[in-house]
């Protein structure tokens, strides 16, 4: 069962002036981060339960917390998956979805089943020596209605080819 009170408690603790301004000792900062991460995990169970209820399904739902460094084992290893976008704002948004993948081309369809333009770009922006091993990053423009969901279906069309990564210019 999901529980948002874990995150509420962690955010309450992080109202301390040290947490707000970063003037705590390192081990205290690490503990603030640990509490927030535990709260985050517990909320993800809550969101998954809500989505399962709304979708009438027991399928597992996956959260990737390191998309900003292009790491997501699920999208890197799954040939057919869906991307669910929840928009918390009171107006519709378009949003670039970037997911690490191992294929070189994918078919993306929108909630109405229409094809969505997508591309796989090489050399995802991972941190140097960082984790994650996908050679490419799937990019498509998604959108979601005000305070609502959109589900985009992604199917791999071609297996991963060895990428000819563009090299940094000399110097």
């Amino acid at each position, binding site marked *: 069962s999901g529980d948002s009170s874990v995150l509420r408690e962690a955010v309450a603790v992080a109202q301390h002036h040290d947490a707000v301004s970063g003037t705590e000792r390192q081990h205290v900062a690490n503990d603030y981060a640990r509490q927030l991460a535990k709260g985050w995990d517990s909320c993800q169970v809550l969101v998954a339960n809500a989505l399962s209820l*709304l979708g009438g399904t027991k399928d597992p739902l996956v959260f*990737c917390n390191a998309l900003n460094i292009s790491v997501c084992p699920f999208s890197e290893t799954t040939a057919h998956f869906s991307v669910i976008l929840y928009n918390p704002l009171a107006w519709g*948004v378009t949003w670039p979805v970037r997911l690490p993948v191992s294929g070189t081309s994918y078919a993306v369809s929108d909630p109405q089943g229409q094809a969505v333009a997508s591309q796989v770009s090489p050399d995802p922006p991972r941190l140097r020596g960082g984790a994650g091993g996908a050679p490419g990053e799937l990019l498509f423009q998604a959108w979601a209605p005000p305070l609502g969901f959109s589900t985009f279906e992604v199917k791999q069309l071609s297996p991963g080819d060895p990428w000819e990564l563009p090299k940094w210019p000399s110097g």
Partner: protein
Amino acid sequence: DPEPQIQNEYLRVLFDPTTGHLCEIQNLVKGFSLPVFQSFYWYNASAGDPLNPQASGAYIFRPNTSTPFPVAKRVATRLLKSALVQELHQNFSAWCSQVLRLRPGQPYLELEWTVGPIPVSDGLGKEIISRFETPLRTAGRFYTDSNGRQVLERRRDYRPTWNLSQSEPVAGNYYPVNTRIFIKDQKVQLTVLTDRSQGGSSILDGSLELMVHRRLLNDDNRGVGEPLDEPGDDGRGLVVRGRHLVLLDTVAAAADQHRPRAQEMVTPPYVVLAPGPGPQLRQG
């Protein structure tokens, strides 16, 4: 490429072919352009001096000179253009890089910066800034928000409620930026949206800067008892990645753009993945 540039239906962004830096932003809808130079610099963190023993630390920002050092005078660049995105990758150094992106339908320039681990083997603490320089005549004024709500006018070396005698020409002009900082003249406004709270200022007329990362070697003697020197996952020093959205518009129209964009920055859509076709969600 003699004139490296990226473009969408709203903006054209030009880069210096020699140094690889951003050098101009053109608003294609309103038909005007602004020379904008952007680069990364580092302030040498003070370790205290004979006049004032105060060091830069977790509580205190105190550079030991007012002029920051450029991370790189020239950057290695790579230009990628496709139907879905046009982007220029800049490599300032092994610990500082940035990707500038324009996507169809987005009236702003996205700068995704990655900074760290900050090298300190020279024994110098460093405070890293991203600085934008323009010819705008700003008369020492710039604007920063408070918790994403009220925007306050800031004036260099001045306080509205008491006669300030400025003792710290840089740090004394830094203010908290929660979501946005902007500079403007009579007609044109350059706004930078942040994806987290940062320190910001306008130290030179026509310029604005945001502090993106710090790594210090001295305690500032205010109680924490250790330098601000975060080890990061591998202990080599914290690596930070973030985004700045740059909007160039008329003063009259600027708020219509930066207000919704700033909200989207702090409450972006939330991505959840599912195997196969996923749940058929009923809209609420």
